[in-house]
């Protein structure tokens, strides 16, 4: 059975319909990439899954249970954590405080173990544990956002554009960490504009265009498809995608 099951999801911002009937499934231990141009509705989808937006219609099931109308905090408790677009770390709190907040829903006794796990995955965070998150570099903030989400010990990890605005070498490091995280058994739903890197990591992908899914398939197939080639892998990207062979 699938871990995440989304059926005919419609989400509005006032009169504007941002998601026009999205259906997708994510199986346990899968890595799924969501691709799409600016304004396609990727962030809207992630925010809706996390309960920050209420859909107009459609359903979201997680592990067989309906979570469509659940509050965001309850959804975290069910096992869905998100590293949001733009990272959204708590700038005036320390790295350690940010990480501890990531484990807000966890029993007190389990926090130390998870902190060790996250800090071994991102040793930079350990070095900077006492520093204000707002003073970290962009790449370090992204690591913090991912590490903070991992502190919730999620079964499903949502990642909204983890490569946004980062240097290619940092992007590669982040993707290596994502591969490592996936190996621990966490299911990953990854939103990316960096289509090549995302598809190389993912098992399957969905392509979103103005609120609709226009293409879906195995990651390898998508990588080779002419639609993807022309629309997203055109080779004129400046964010590092073209640097990878």
């Amino acid at each position, binding site marked *: 059975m699938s871990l995440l099951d989304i059926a005919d999801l419609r989400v509005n911002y006032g009169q504007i319909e941002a998601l026009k009937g999205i259906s997708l499934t994510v199986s346990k231990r899968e890595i799924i990439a969501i691709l799409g141009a600016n304004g396609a509705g990727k962030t809207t989808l992630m*925010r809706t899954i*996390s*309960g*920050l937006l209420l859909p107009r219609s459609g359903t979201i099931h997680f592990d067989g249970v309906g979570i469509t109308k659940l*509050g*965001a*905090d309850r959804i*975290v*408790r069910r096992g869905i*954590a*998100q590293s*949001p677009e*733009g*990272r*959204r*770390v*708590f*700038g*005036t*709190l320390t790295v350690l*405080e940010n990480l*501890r*907040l*990531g484990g*807000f*829903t966890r029993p*007190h006794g389990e926090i130390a173990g998870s902190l060790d796990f996250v800090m071994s995955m991102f040793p930079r965070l350990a070095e900077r544990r006492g520093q*204000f998150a*707002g*003073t970290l570099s*962009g790449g370090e*903030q992204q690591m913090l956002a991912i590490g*903070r*989400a991992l502190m*919730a010990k999620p079964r499903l990890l949502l990642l909204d554009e983890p490569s946004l605005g980062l240097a290619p070498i940092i992007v590669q490091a982040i993707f290596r960490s994502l591969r490592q995280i996936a190996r621990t058994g966490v299911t990953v739903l990854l939103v990316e504009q960096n289509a090549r890197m995302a598809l190389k990591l993912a098992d399957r992908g969905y392509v979103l265009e103005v609120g609709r899914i226009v293409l879906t398939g195995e990651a390898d197939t998508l990588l080779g498809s002419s639609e993807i080639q022309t629309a997203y892998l055109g080779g004129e990207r400046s964010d590092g995608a073209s640097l990878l062979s």
Partner: protein
Amino acid sequence: MGTFIQQVFNGLTVGGIYALIALGYTMVYGVMRLINFAHGDLCILGAFIGLTMLTSTAGSGHPGPALLLLAFVVAIVLVAAAGVVLELVAYRPLRKADRLAAVISALGASLLIENGIMLIWGPEVAVFPSGLLPRITWHAAGASISFVQVMIIVASIFLMAALYLFVNHTRFGTAIRAAAIDQDAARLMGINVNRVIAIVFVIGPTLGAVGGLFIGIYYREAYFTMGWTYGLYAFIAAILGGIGNIPGAMLGGVLLGLFNAFAAGYVSSSWQNAITFALLIAILLVRPTGLLGERVAEKV
């Protein structure tokens, strides 16, 4: 020298009270970006509830300090309850509405509480009974410090230290700070932001009720428009320290109290407000975000 020490103690006394009330403004602003204009009135509601408790238990034979403590407890409980109801009724339905709607709702709530106080306790100035507290006054170096002053200063310091520890060193306190920085990100941590806001509307009015009752005890009077007068001072203290910043409200309150006292002591009490506000404007010209506002880059 005598005047100096005297004014330091006078300033710390009212400063402590301003700080207690300012914390309510600053915490609500921090989490909701809303000026709770009804906060001053809630504080004075605390003074009136405390007064009613004191007058109705006076002569019951129990020791004065016990009666005083009871008055504080009842005032805190009722004012905190009023704070929670206020948020639920006046602010929560407007959470997603235009900011102006919330401001108008806050002003309406303020008028409602103020007039409610007038209906219940009347428009005339109510006088606090004397003799509840030991009438001790210490004299040293030409200054005289009363027991009431010492009590207010010590209690204010104690409450502010407790709040500081709670906000900075507990899990839920960190959640409050997170919600103040970024509500949606806080939700993604599994924090129930509605609960955070409700708790802020317990903490603010709790400290405010103590502050309000201190005003009544210190000046030995209470009147229904007092919420505006002292609410304004405390609000200005919050701005002075940097609105939204908790240590800022504490610092702003104490500084404002000291300004006030020194202006009254060295110039004249009729110039007290003019001098205080001139200083305030000068400080805000140099630091528009207040003394402790935006110390660290918050936006990334």
